[in-house]
Every structure is written in C-alpha cells, then in structure tokens.
C-alpha cells in the first residue's frame, strides 16, 4: 500500500513532463507565428506606403484599362474578315523585318555570350583551376555580368554606340556571358576528372587537358544551356528595344507612346507567337543535344 502511494506520482511524472514540453513548444510556435504575422504586416504596410498604392485611383482607372484593351482590339467583321486582317497588319512587311532583326540580335548576343562564357568558365571552375587569383577574377566578372540587368547595360550602351541593334547585342551578350558562365562552370565542377588526368599524364599542358579531357564531356550540356539561353535572349531582345536598342521592341515602344492602338495588339500578338514558335523548336533541338550524351 505504502509502496503504491509512493509510486503513483512518479508514474504521472513522464506525462506531466510531456505536457509541459508540449506547452513550451506550442508557446514557441505561437510566438513564431506572431512574429511572422507582425513582420508580414509591417512589410505590407511599408510596401503600400512606398509603393504609392492608391486604391481609388486604381478603381477610377480600371474602366480606362478595359477601354485600352477594347481600343487595341482590331475590328474584324465576318463579311470582310480578310480585308480587315490585312488592314490590321498594314505594316506586316516592316514588322517582319524588325522581328527578324530581333531574332538576329538574340542569336548574335547568344553567340558572343557563349564565347565569353566558354573562355571564362574553365578558370572559374574550382576543380580545374588551382590559381586562386584567376579563379577569383573570373568568378567576379561572371557575377557582375549576370547581376546587372540587360536593360541597364543597354541604357549605357545606347548612350555610347547610338540608337540601333549594336548596343542591344552587346548588352544581352554581356548578361548572357555571366549567366552562361556560371552554369558552365558548375557543369565543369561536376566533370569526371579521369580523362583530364590521363591527358596530363601523357604530357599534355593545361589547355590540352581542357580541350581533350573536359570539353568532350561537357559540350553537349553547354549546347543545351546555350539553346535555352537563346530562347531567353529572344525575349530580352524584344525588350531592350524599349530603350532604343533596335528590333521590334523599339517599334512597339513607339506605337505605345503614340497611342496607335491597333498596331499595339498586332505587334504584341506577332511577338508572342514568334516567341512560342522559337521555344518549341529550341526545345526539340535541346532534346537532341542532350540525347547525344545518352547514345555515346
């Protein structure tokens, strides 16, 4: 009896510990939740103030928004559809040339970016470069290239080279070089070093080691990323035109600024279709580029 009395509280002990622990965790969770809610509310209010959010103005402007879309819609009647579409796309010849220019800008920028990235990615790979200085410098160059948006480069280049496609190509190339270089150096860091060591053992220097030991392994992946970058660059090329760097973007900016409504929808539709088309064809090519790895 006495033994039982003595034991009972001890049997409850783990349970109470559990409850205390549970309460503590719950308190912690609750505190965390409140902190998050407070931080979130703070960010929300702060953003609304600095973002000049103005709901009445938004509501007031909303009809104008729908009007804007209404205005850009072409009037196509069923009885004269062909003529109306021809009317809508009155500038198709010029626009197609500009669209083609945009694709060329993207191509050339991708090519330049690829060359730059290809040169920098080997010294920027930890496993291929033991010289910490050149590693550091290449890394920083690539980081700078990909962190500054294309449009910022484009603004500066338009100032120096004048309006036209050249600043667009250079701006996108610089950004692609940074973005591709980072991806390439990551691929390099995952490479199998066996072949490279083999070349070194046979008396090859650093360049031969890279050329015969590393490049054959990584090239298909490089091509795949470059094609993906080309897709991204087509979009970028259509946008850098907004600051005067050539292509269809420049024309789009003009018609938006001058409120030539129906041209806006015509050009935007053309642009979206072109981007979709390029995306699809690049995806096919990309699968072929990666497919090569599997067959070898």
């Amino acid at each position: 009896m006495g033994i039982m009395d003595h034991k009972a509280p001890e049997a409850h002990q783990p349970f109470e510990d559990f409850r205390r622990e549970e309460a503590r965790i719950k308190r912690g969770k609750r505190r965390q939740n409140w902190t998050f809610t407070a931080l979130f509310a703070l960010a929300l209010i702060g953003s609304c103030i600095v973002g000049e959010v103005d709901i009445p103005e938004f509501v007031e402007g909303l009809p104008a928004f729908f009007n804007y879309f209404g205005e850009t819609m072409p009037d196509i009647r069923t009885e004269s559809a062909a003529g109306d579409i021809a009317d809508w796309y009155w500038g198709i010849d010029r626009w197609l040339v500009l669209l083609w220019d945009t694709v060329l800008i993207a191509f050339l920028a991708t090519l330049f970016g690829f060359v730059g990235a290809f040169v920098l990615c080997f010294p920027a790979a930890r496993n291929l470069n033991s010289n910490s200085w050149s590693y550091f410098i290449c890394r920083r160059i690539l980081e700078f290239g990909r962190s500054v948006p294309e449009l910022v480069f484009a603004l500066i280049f338009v100032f120096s080279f004048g309006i036209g496609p050249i600043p667009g190509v250079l701006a996108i190339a610089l950004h692609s070089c940074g973005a591709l270089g980072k991806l390439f150096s990551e691929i390099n860091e995952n490479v199998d070093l066996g072949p490279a060591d083999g070349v070194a053992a046979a008396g090859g220097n650093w360049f031969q080691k890279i050329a015969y030991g590393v490049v054959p392994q990584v090239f298909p992946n490089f091509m795949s990323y470059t094609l993906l970058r080309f897709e991204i660059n087509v979009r970028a090329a259509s946008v850098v035109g907004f600051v005067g760097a050539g292509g269809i973007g420049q024309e789009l900016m003009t018609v938006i600024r001058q409120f030539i409504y129906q041209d806006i929808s015509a050009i935007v539709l053309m642009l979206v279709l072109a981007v979709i088309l390029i995306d699809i064809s690049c995806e096919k090519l990309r699968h072929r580029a990666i497919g090569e790895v599997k067959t070898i």
Partner: protein
Amino acid sequence: MTGLQLSADILGAALIHPEAFHRGTPQKRLRFWSAWVGIFLFTIYCFYTLGFFDISRLISGFEKLFGVVSFMLPPKAHGRTWVFLHALLETLGMAFLGTLLASLASVPLGFLGAKNVVSNRLFHFTLRRFVDFLRGIDALIWALVWINVVGLGPFAGILAIAVTNTGELSKLFSEAIENVDHKPMEGVRSCGANAVQTIRFAVLPQVFPVILSNSLYYFESNTRSATILGIVGAGGIGLQLADRIRVMAWDQVSVLIIMILITVYGIDALSNRVRQQFI
C-alpha cells in the same frame, strides 16, 4: 612484347568500338562541317545586317564607352543617398506587393485551372489560354499599359509584376494541384466531406509548401525585374537610373548599379536561408 600486347588490345578495342577509332562516315563528317560553316556564314550575315561592319562607329562607340566607365569611377552619390535609398525601398516594396497580389490571385486561378478540380474541358482550355496570355506579354509591356491607367509611379510597376506573375504562378499552382496524391482526398471524402472541405483538408496541405516556395522564388526574381521596370517610368530604382543616365551623372549611375548588385545578392542570400529553414 608489351608493345605487341598493346597493339593487339587496341585492335580488339577497335573491333568492339569502331566509332571511336575513325572520324565517322563521310556523310556524318559532311553534316558536321556543313553545320559549322552554316553557323559561320549566318554569323557573318548577322554582322552585316545589324551593322557590325561599320568599324568607325564601333571604334567611336567603344571610345565613348571607355569615357563613360572612367567617369563612373569613383562612385559618388552627390548628396542623393537618401533619394536613392528611398528608390531602392520602393523597388523592394514593388516586388513584395506584386508577388503578394500575384500569389493571392493565383491560388483560386490555380484551383480552377487544375483538371482534377474543374473537369470541364472548354473552361479548362479558356482559362489556360487566358493565363498564357498574361504570361506571354513581358512585364515591361504590362508596365507601359498600367502607366496609362494609374499614371507614372511604382503602383504601375506593382500591377505589372502582379499580372505577369499571376500568369506564371497560376500555371505552376495548377500543375502542383494536378499532381497531388489522391489517397488523402479519398480518405477525407469517405468521412463525408464536401468538395470545399476536401480541398481544405486533403489538397491544400499538399500544395501549400509548393505555393509558398514558388512565391518566395518569384519574390527573388521580381526584385530583379522591379529594378528595370522603372526605366519605362514605373518607379523604383530604375527610374532614378534612367534619369541619372539622361543627365550623364555617371558617378551616380555607378552608385545605383552597386546598390542594385548589393540588393540582388542580399535577397539571394536571404531567400536561400529562408528556404533552408522552412522548406
């Protein structure tokens, strides 16, 4: 002896892997070389069409660029530090509110666009195309449209980010919802839950982490896009940047570029930490 052994080994290997020991069939080589020659010729054509053969223009451009870069150093804010910091805060606010609005709009759109929630084909197709339309038009173009509606300033940028991201996020969300595990749904339904309760207790717990992590990722990428929206007039640090370039205050331009770099790195690091902690 060993030499003979080696050459016999090589011959054996050549029999097993003939493609490694000669340079492919003539057809293959022709295709390879014609591809490279084609790319080369196309590059020349690009140079010609885009005006890269205008050497004098290139030289004067690079000279001018060199001048610009030398004016950029050392970076100096000339007493505009607070203006720039406010613009930076504005950019962050734009990204935050844009992402928030997009996430809020994308949750219902994502549910409606998922095949396993609404099975009507026509509805599904229409909604998907609508979302594609939102996504297909660049944020900068949306910014230009919104500027016509709410005027110049960061609010137009917020709306532009919100619209483009709604297109992207609702596509991702509906894909996540389409891929949910069906067993919890059956379980909840077998307890007598209606459609809304099934979504709340069986679907939402599965897709919520996806929604959260994608929203975080888009916040990160939106800080980048918010920096450039200002260039067309939608507020933030881009507005300052375009303005300073227009008046050729290059040392202030480099201050702004450095601020953009620091912000991008900072947000990257921050979201990496948040992601590691919560997801």
